[in-house]
Structures are given as structure tokens and as C-alpha cells.
């Protein structure tokens, strides 16, 4: 192996230090809390108690999967269209995708509360044309919609970035060899954009499955795993159960990322050349 210079070794040091203090150490603290009780004695009680939250965990996964799939269906064609536009148009479209990311999640979610409420914007408009009001807020649909709205940029951007790097001459070669639009999409664009899809799916699924704020504001009585963790720590001061629940979530996320990686690895070995 090549010997690295002092500078090369030092340049990474600040981040290594940061990661050690704020990422690795807290992970061990989570582990410690998961397997101890309030007095600090070792116990499996927290782990045993997890069984009570099976259903909530299942609903969280279900909502996040639905949100991720819909986000993908909406984002993929959009990213494709965007990558084929003129550079100037691409920049404007990119800006429109990014603007919601500049605003705080709380403000965005409060705005959606106002729009979806019983007496909110949509129902007011419906009333004006003499239509009965719809129950929008406090439904699973509202929670899933909130996830999609907040995390869609994290799907669009990686897909767009991979698509805009596809060499246009590959698309011309596909046409030249007889591919119409659909065949070009299926045989060239889709396989070459898999890495973008994988990172987009990961970046939407992970925050969706652990969200608590969106479900509280738009979901009413709907409780997701993130809400349970928050309640254990905030309201009930039960750090130990909270940590155990977080551990489950982390394991779930690690499994899903490993799955995605494997999926991309099957035919994605030589995608970045």
C-alpha cells in the first residue's frame, strides 16, 4: 500500500473525531440504554416489551413503503423529462424542486394542516361550489401525502443526477439500432438509472419510516413508531424503552439499505465508469 503523507492523514482527522464523538459513542449509548433499566442494571425487559409495538411498527413500514413507491412513480418520469430539457429549463425545474427544501418542515406541515382541515382551504373551495366537505385530515392518506410532499426532492435529485450523466450518444445508438422510445427506456435508460433509484428510495424510505411530526400534525390519532419513541422519551421519561425502539428502527433501516445495495449490485457493478 502506498504510504500516505502527514497532510493526507491529518486532513481526515476532524471528521473522524466528529464521527467518533457524535455518531459512534451515541450508538453505544443507545445500545446501553436498550439493555438496562432506569437504575442501570442489565435487563431484557425493554426488548420483551417491544412485542407490544409490533402493530405500530408494521403500520409505519406500510405507510413508508406506500409513500416511497408513489414518490418513485411521480419522480422518475419527472427526472427523465427534466434531464432531457435545455440547460436553462433544467435549472428552473431544479429550483422548483429545491424550494420546498429551503423551508422548515414544521412550517410546511402546518401549511398542509391549514389546507386539509375540516374548515381548511380545500373544503372552503368545495363549499363555494356547493359540494359536501371531504374528510382529508387525520386520515392515513394525509400522513402518506405529508411524507411524499416533504421527501420528494430526495427522490428526484439522485435520479435526475444519474440520468443527466447518461451519455446522449448511448440513446442515439439505441435509436440507431432500432429502439423506439419505449424500448430505449426499457433497455438503456432504466438499467442505467438504477443507482439513482436505489439512493432515492433509501433517502425517502429512511426518514419516512422514522417520522413523528408529520403523523402527529396530519394524522390525528394515527401513531407511528417515531411518535412512540418521542412519547417514551419526552412524556414518559422512559429512555430505556425509547432506545430499544430506536434500535429496532436502526436494524430495520440497515436491513433495507443492505437489500437496496444488493439489488443495485446485481447488474450495477459497472454503472459508474
Amino acid at each position, binding site marked *: 500500500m502506498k504510504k500516505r503523507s502527514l497532510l493526507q492523514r491529518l486532513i481526515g482527522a476532524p471528521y473522524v473525531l466528529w464521527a467518533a464523538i457524535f455518531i459512534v459513542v451515541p450508538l453505544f449509548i443507545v445500545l446501553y440504554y436498550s439493555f438496562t433499566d432506569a437504575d442501570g442494571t442489565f435487563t431484557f425487559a425493554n426488548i420483551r416489551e417491544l412485542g407490544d409495538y409490533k402493530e405500530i411498527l408494521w403500520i409505519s413500514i406500510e405507510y413508508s413503503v406506500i409513500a416511497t413507491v408513489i414518490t418513485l412513480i411521480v419522480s422518475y418520469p419527472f427526472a427523465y423529462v427534466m434531464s432531457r430539457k435545455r440547460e436553462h429549463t433544467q435549472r428552473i425545474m431544479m429550483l422548483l424542486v429545491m424550494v420546498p427544501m429551503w423551508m422548515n418542515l414544521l412550517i410546511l406541515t402546518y401549511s398542509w394542516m391549514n389546507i386539509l382541515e375540516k374548515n381548511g382551504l380545500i373544503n372552503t373551495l368545495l363549499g363555494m361550489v356547493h359540494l359536501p366537505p371531504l374528510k382529508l385530515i387525520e386520515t392515513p392518506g394525509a400522513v402518506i401525502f405529508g411524507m411524499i410532499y416533504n421527501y420528494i426532492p430526495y427522490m428526484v435529485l439522485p435520479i435526475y443526477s444519474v440520468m443527466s450523466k447518461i451519455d446522449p*450518444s448511448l440513446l442515439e445508438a439505441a435509436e440507431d*439500432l432500432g429502439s423506439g422510445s419505449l424500448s430505449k427506456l426499457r433497455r438503456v435508460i432504466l438499467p442505467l438509472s438504477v443507482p439513482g433509484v436505489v439512493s432515492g428510495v433509501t433517502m425517502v424510505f429512511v426518514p419516512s419510516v422514522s417520522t413523528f411530526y408529520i403523523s402527529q400534525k396530519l394524522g390525528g390519532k394515527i401513531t407511528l413508531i417515531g411518535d412512540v419513541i418521542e412519547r417514551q422519551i419526552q412524556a414518559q421519561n422512559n429512555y430505556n424503552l425509547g432506545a430499544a425502539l430506536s434500535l429496532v428502527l436502526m436494524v430495520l433501516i440497515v436491513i433495507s439499505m443492505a437489500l437496496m445495495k444488493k439489488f443495485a449490485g446485481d447488474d450495477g457493478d459497472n454503472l459508474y465508469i
Partner: protein
Amino acid sequence: MNHEKNIIELKDITVRFDGETVLDDLNLSIRDGEFVTLLGSSGCGKTTTLRIIAGFLEPDEGEVFFDSKNMNGVPAHKREVNTIFQRYALFPHYNVFENVAYGLRVRRTPEAEIRERVHEMLTLVNLDGFAKRSVSKLSGGQQQRVAIARALVLKPKVLLLDEPLSALDLKLRKDMQNELRNIQKALGITFVFVTHDQEEALSMSDTIVVMNEGKVQQIGSPIDIYNEPQNAFVADFIGESNILDGVMKEDYKASFSGKTFQCLDKGFAPGEAVDVVVRPEDVDIVDPGKGMLKGIVTSVTFRGVHFEIIVDIGGFKWMIQTTDFHPEGAEVGLIIEPDAIHVMKKSKYSGMFGDYSTFSDEMDEMNAPPEDEDDE
């Protein structure tokens, strides 16, 4: 193959990009089974012409015919031509076999036939045993062969080649030139080849189309283009030439450099101003007293097979190629035989080329445009 039949015809093609005319009223007929080369420096419109034939670009004006059928508006994937791209454009997510099989799969060819035809093609381009390789692990020359196999497996009537050899080193390039020529002869299909390299054009083509500024300058066989250039641009672009201002005294008598010479050209008005081309290898050097012209050697360069010497005659710098050494500063005589003289009508290129006083800069620019520069 029918040499009398035009397989492709371009009629009055005009293309503009952002108000700039890239092809200007271009007309071109390509016969079935021919090896045609579009030759010109970057920006001359040769790649644009190829893209029009392939269907990647619609002309602003004019018509494209294949086998006398109008092709305007027919998209690339429905045209019976295939292209070899400058940087090969192989699919990185497929191996060699799947790259070559691509077009057959799109056409839903039966699996057994795909296997047979792909292997047949891989044999033709000497890539037996490479079927399972990843294309990113191949050398430039091998990638080139995959691109050729991928296009030819579809048995196109016309193969379009966009500077396919420009990324290869010199030796591989010569090998591929021969190989392409052999493949073309063996299959008997029409090749339309784009290059900026005049040597490549001269050695490979049946017909050369010299282009500049979106216009065809001359169409002809390599020998015609070299020996009978139609204007100063063609004379300068193809090979080396001394291009002189002259006057046609009468048929078979041309006057330049203050003397009148016997020549083989006729049909000009008596006293008509003309451009006279004398190729550097056609001039004989003799003792000063025995020459038709007299001059001083101003520089000598050894080129291996010959010396390239610059001789100043009345302020005009001639380039002469000779196997005998003549030192700088020596006085020499020149003999120019009638068949060494080629007379051309004046054109807008008259006076732009021909003197070798600014030889190096100008020639470098003309002969070696940057390889990665696109045509548009």
C-alpha cells in the same frame, strides 16, 4: 449490389443552428456498394451530413432519399442504416454479446438465430471468445470492433462511420483502416465514412467528398481529387501544393512566376487569370543554369523518404520534395514538366493558400484539428 443505382440522395439540404448555416444547399448522391468519405476540417458540416442520413437531425430545407424513397420525417430507429459512433457508444450495462445482440433483441429475433448471428459477427471482427467480457474492460481497438459488429449484425444497406478511428493510436489506426476496407469489400455494403484525415480518405475511399463551410467543394475518386483539384481549397487540403497566381496565354500555355510553361490544360479564355497548382514531388531540381526557374534554398527538413526544401523564387516560397540534399543558401534551378502543372479557375479561395512562408502554422491548423472537437 448495383453500382448504377443511387442508394442515398441528398437534395438541396440546408441546416441552420441558431441562425448559423451549417449545411448550405448540399447535394450528394451515393451509389450502392461504394466506400464514400466525407472529408473536411472540423465545422465543415461532414458530421451534420451523416446525422441527416442517420435520421438524428431533420434538415431545415431539402429532401433525403433512400432507394428513391423520401425519408424526411422518418425517425432514426426506422431507417435501414446503422452508425459507428466516434466514441463507440457501447452500452456499459451489457457485455460484448448483449451489445452486439441489442438490435436483434429489439427486433425480437429468435434466440437461436441471435446466438448464431452474434457469433458470426464476433468472428468477422476477430473477437471470438470475448462474448462474455464487460465492454468497459476492452481496449479502444476492441471496443471499436464491438461497435462494428453491433452495427453490421443487422445487415444494414448502409453503414455510417463518424470519425471511428480518431481515438486510436497510429499503428492500430492503419490496421483498422485495412480491416474496415476488407469488411466493406467482403460484405459489399455502402460505407459513408467521415474523417478530417486526408491520408485516411485517400487510402480507403472509392469516392471522396471534400467539404468546407457547409458546401461540397469537390466529389471524385482519390486520384482525381489529388491530381485535378477544382479549387485552391481542395488543392491545399489534400496533400501539399504550391498554388501560384497565373494567366492562361492560350490552350496548353500557362504563365506564372514570370515565365510561360507548356501544360496539358485547355478551355480557358486567352488571358484568363487562373490558379496554378504544382505538387512538391513533381518539381525536378537541377543546376541553376539548366532550370526553367531559379531560386535560393531557404530551409531543409529531412522527412525520411525525402527532403522537404523551401525555395524562394521572386519572393514566393515553393515547397519541393526531393531525395537529393541541397544545403540552405544554395542556388538551384527548377524544371516543371507539362504534366506537373494543373490549372484551376479562380475561386473565392484564390490567394488564401499556396505560399509556404507561413507554412508551419497554417498546415498544423489545417491538418490536425483537435481530435476531441465535435463537428458542430
